[in-house]
């Protein structure tokens, strides 16, 4: 069987490369019984559309991220909370451990299940000035993804959340339509945002992973051995991805410093973490399941 996997990154993106590693490994482990054919650049639809297709068995697999998946399965919102992870180590322990597996399995009733998490690093603020404390965000127009949690986080930090599409962000930063944005360091180089901002402040507020999902139809059609092979391949590629991502992220920071003259700042995260703490309670209040998940994540470190 060939499983089609749609995602919206270009084929040279680290996540694409890691999914290719997973695909190769699955084929190897199942003697080519299960093949994954990857469609980059959203050829088969946007992230939301491919999730809907996966739910209805019109597409076998898709890659989305924890932020977009909130609309389909609430468990993912625990991962999107700012400062829920104390460190990269903590984050990795969660996504590769039992909690991660529970979240991946939580959506079976919605018609799909998660297969793999891929780190996309920690997101931080960047602007024409250093953002060293929440004070520096007062009245600042910050571009956010149009998700309630991103909006709420910037509000709690004192900024003005401004949803702007990713494609328009470069010129929006250039022309001052927004003053700041938040993303991982690779945005400085791959999207050339380093050309239009001067300072990248490593406050590392969220770690929102990519998630690969598979439809129930495709999963249930596999034998237990094939399902096990898929899990093994996913874990192998996640380990490879972690190294590849860190290398790409470090390279982006070096390049931004050297060729784009971006100042990189280390930041005291405590005041940021304190300001957004109410979000943890707000999300926990949504359901017992979420409250439990958040407690378990915090207890892991």
């Amino acid at each position, binding site marked *: 069987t060939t499983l*089609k996997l749609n995602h919206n990154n270009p084929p040279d993106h680290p996540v694409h490369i890691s999914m290719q590693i997973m695909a190769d490994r699955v084929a190897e482990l199942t003697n080519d019984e299960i093949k994954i054919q990857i*469609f980059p*650049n*959203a*050829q*088969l*639809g*946007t992230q*939301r*559309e491919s999730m*809907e*297709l996966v739910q*209805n*068995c*019109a597409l076998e697999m898709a890659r989305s991220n924890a932020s977009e998946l909130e609309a389909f399965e609430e468990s993912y919102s625990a991962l999107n909370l700012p400062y829920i992870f104390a460190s990269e180590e903590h984050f990795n322990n969660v996504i590769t451990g039992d909690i991660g597996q529970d979240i991946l399995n939580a959506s079976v009733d919605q018609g799909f299940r998660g297969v793999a998490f891929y780190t996309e690093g920690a997101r931080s603020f960047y602007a024409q000035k250093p953002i060293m404390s929440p004070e520096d965000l007062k009245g600042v127009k910050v571009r956010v993804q149009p998700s309630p949690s991103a909006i709420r986080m910037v509000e709690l930090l004192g900024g003005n959340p401004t949803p702007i*599409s990713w*494609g*328009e962000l470069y*010129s*929006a930063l*250039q*022309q*001052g*339509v927004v003053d700041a944005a938040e993303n991982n360091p690779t945005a400085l180089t791959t999207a*050339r945002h380093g*050309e239009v901002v001067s300072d990248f402040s490593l406050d590392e507020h969220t770690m929102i992973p990519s998630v690969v999902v598979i439809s129930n139809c495709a999963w249930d059609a596999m034998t237990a051995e094939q399902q096990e092979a898929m899990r093994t391949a996913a874990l192998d590629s996640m380990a490879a991805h972690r190294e590849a991502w860190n290398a790409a992220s470090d390279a982006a920071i070096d390049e931004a410093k050297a060729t784009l003259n971006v100042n990189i700042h280390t930041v005291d995260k405590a005041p940021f973490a304190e300001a957004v703490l109410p979000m943890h309670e707000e999300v926990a209040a949504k359901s017992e399941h979420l409250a439990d998940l958040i407690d378990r994540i915090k207890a892991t470190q």
Partner: protein
Amino acid sequence: MTTPIFLLFGSFGILMALGVPIAFSIGIATTVTFFLFMGVDQSLFIVAQQMASGLDSFTLLAIPFFILAGNIMNRGGIAMRLINFAKVLGGRLPGALAHCNVIANMMFGSISGSAVASAAAVGGVMAPLQKKEGYDPAFSAAVNIASCPTGLLIPPSATLIVYSLITGGTSIAALFVAGYVPGILMGVGLMIVAGIIAKRRGYPVAPRPALSEVWAAARDAVLPLGLIVIVMGGIISGVFTATEASAAAVLYTLALALIWYREITLKDMPRILIESAVTTSVVLLMIGASIAMSRVMAFGGIPFAISDFLLGLSDNPLAILLAINIALLIVGTFMDMTPALLIFTPIFMPVVKGLGMDPVHFGIVMTLNLCIGICTPPVGSALFVGCSVGGTSIAKVIRPLLPFYALLFGLLMLVTYVPEISLFLPRLLLGYQ
């Protein structure tokens, strides 16, 4: 590989030829082809989803707004004001009225973004004037037909917005700015050809206008042309996105027509809104169906198969680009601009990407190519409207059109092979890379 290609394009071609509306022809052909890849229920599901979700774009919203602004403008005497100003600008050249027609088409087309509206509004005024001064009606109509599509290149342009969407978000600001030089070159080139013919035929030069006339004409044209300043100034300076600029265009034309010129009243607005919505939804339904079609093409690997085929034909990128241009010119003879753009952009995009061509540059090439298409028989909206308002027939207008076709083809080659013509301005003004 060949089965999906033949099923998709075969069924589409047959349905279209039998007169099934194009949007539905695309939709049916797409659904039938999806049956090759998934169950019936899944196929119905994905096509339905794409028909709506393919339109989920804030950028695309600019289209109804620009069409609405154009319709509000068309109601009043905007065409007359721009023609008077064009007379001043082109009056001292041999064949003054022909030049006036071209210049007015460039200005009116820039604002309305519609070749057909421009051909009707400007040509409708110019044809009787030209006849009175002894111009051959077929020649006048040919000038009007060839020059009315300039407004599709000169921004703002709904055509370029659709191109941006279908290519996955090519910068609209860059596309708009890139259209200026090719669009103006097109107008100037047509004026040179028209001038040569007019001089040979002894068509008159207009008398030198008095300074007061110049002033009055310029003053009348300032407000309508102010729309371009607001829209393009707003986009280039980054104050507005294209969609916000289009909403500003609506408010500006509304203020102009309701308050300043008092040419329409609020009572006229529902009809104008409905008319704009109808025009818009014709294109939007086609876009939704085409996005579904591009998905089934991706499922079948069709764009890459065609790309491999074309790239395998020759090692010479110049030859491949020529082949693409000729294919598009042939498509343009019988297909309207919108479906041609929607269907052939995703097919040729992997090829031109493989050749390292810039997507903004290809957008301009594609638009210019299809601009020629709407002037050629058997199906050509500019040709039809131009003949009808010019009081001539397609048979009569073909001969005088030939030198203009030659010029447009030359310009197409120039724009294809010299990317700087398109990319120079966006690089200069927007730092486009």
